[in-house]
């Protein structure tokens, strides 16, 4: 999006936003920032400065208050990403279970390096730290879904399924 006027949550999401703000005491609406940034990312895939300015307006806070938070937390994408963002755990326990080899296979299959997006725009691959699923590693996450006990065969099947 390039135009501020096009940044607007659909009515049902806007209703959720107002409900979320009510979780906190009067005047503490800034607490709603993380939940709303998650909603914004679900809506627009990544957080452009227009989106962040829009969120600042919804919460009646300064845009800088949104930028400083969005840049601190690693779940927020600050640049355009593919349709499916694969967040791959690179931490110790997953590595013990062969996470490194499976990761290399994934990158090779998609023809991307870490942080890259596949040529068809379908997949972005990101490395993340521990996803709290160490006993079920190797693990990656795509949006809300955890994919666990990964093998190269499983990765092939997941990518094929999502490529349809």
């Amino acid at each position: 999006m390039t135009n501020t006027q096009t940044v607007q949550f659909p009515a049902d999401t806007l209703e959720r936003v107002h409900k979320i703000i009510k979780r906190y005491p009067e005047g503490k609406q800034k607490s709603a920032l993380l939940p709303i940034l998650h909603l914004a990312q679900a809506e627009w895939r990544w957080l452009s400065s227009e989106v962040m300015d829009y969120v600042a307006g919804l919460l009646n806070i300064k845009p800088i208050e949104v930028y400083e938070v969005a840049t601190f937390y690693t779940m927020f994408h600050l640049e355009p990403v593919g349709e499916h963002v694969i967040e791959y755990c690179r931490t110790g326990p997953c590595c013990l279970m062969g996470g490194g080899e499976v990761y290399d296979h994934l990158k090779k299959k998609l023809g991307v390096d870490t942080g890259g997006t596949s040529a068809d725009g379908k997949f972005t691959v990101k490395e993340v730290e521990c996803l709290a699923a160490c006993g079920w590693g190797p693990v990656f996450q795509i949006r809300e879904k955890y994919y666990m006990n990964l093998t190269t065969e499983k990765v092939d099947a997941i990518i094929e399924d999502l490529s349809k």
Partner: protein
Amino acid sequence: MKILTQHIDVPGIETIDVYRKHGGYSAVEKAIKTMAPDEVTEEVKKSGLRGRGGAGFPVGMKWSFLAKPEGVPRYLVCNADESEPGTFKDHYLMMKSPHTLIEGMIVSSYALGANTSYIYVRGELMYVINILEKAIQEAYDKGLLGKNILGSGYDLDLFVQPGGGAYICGEETALLESLEGKRGNPRNKPPFPAVKGLYQCPTVVNNVESIAATSWIVNNGGEEYAKIGVGRSAGTKLISVSGHVRKPGVYEIPLGITVEDFIYSDEWCGGIRDGHKLKAVVAGGSSVPILPAELILKTTNGENRLMTYESLSDGGFATGTMLGSGGFIVMDETTCIVHNTLTFARFYHHESCGQCSPCREGTGWMDKVIHRIEHGKGRMEDIDLLVDVAKKIEGNTICPLGDAAAWPVAAAIRHFRDEFEWHVKHPEEATKPGAVFMREGASWTL
């Protein structure tokens, strides 16, 4: 003896009806209808329950520090930001049995006089947040949350807050900053959250497992809880097991079983995977010192090491470790300790909030220097350089992330210095795929 996971595999336990059929919410009835808030706190004190997030501070004592000025709201915040590598017990408990946490939240909030409570869940676990929110709605519908709970006059609202992907928010003051919609920078203490916490109001922050255990304590009494376990390690503990065992997963153990039983018995981990031998264990999440096989199984006095706070720390950091969060990472002889330490160093470098220089700069240097050693470019003096950097971080930061970053590096060198030296001396061999140093005569050498 199971307290938290007794019914966890019952089909439908995530629904309030099935949960209640198995005795669920009886602690809420008992506490709210028959006990004064201070009586609940008293039982938790008697139980000897210690914080299950990693620090092991007595929960009842933490509650008793809560300031109670007239007319100022108090808050209970549940720390479900589980992010310590090797730890996934809270994830498991909330995903399988959300009402176990919600019941504990109601009982604990009642004890503390909180009328609004929050469960702060790491943002990656959005699917678990959805499970919790559904369960919370069920509890509202049954009159267990909201106004005038069970006709008692006690009101409680409970909300779930997502994080945004930051390990540091597991530190309680960083978590509160985050819950206020800010960057997760830990606060200087004092004041402690018990006096000035969320929105500068008195606040208790407890781990998921700690809060969940309070229901059983209300139902059965603190003294009964204290009977489980050994000495100051009372009760049961959820242990998250990962790595090279036959059966990784989450186990609820009575504190006090031997480490050897835990690793080798079929009731728990089922032993090391076929054809392999135990090399090392990180017993309490990535930040606690790694121990080689002989030291994790027995103390230097030759006693069996137990799964307790005290036994695991026997010998101090020279020969012991910590129970920590119960993130139990098991490594067999195929594990390169240098590589494993690199993944931990990289983790802490990535997760340092950047507020304190020793941590911000030190974690970066440890990551770079270990990276250099792992990739065949290390120098012999790098090994002592790492020890030196670790020492300069430890104790010099606002929050414990600095210590958490320093300890695994220092411990890996303490117990596996030969492996680091081998990487420096034989870079060509050490950088071959799958290459691992074999210590002559070690119990794990095949």
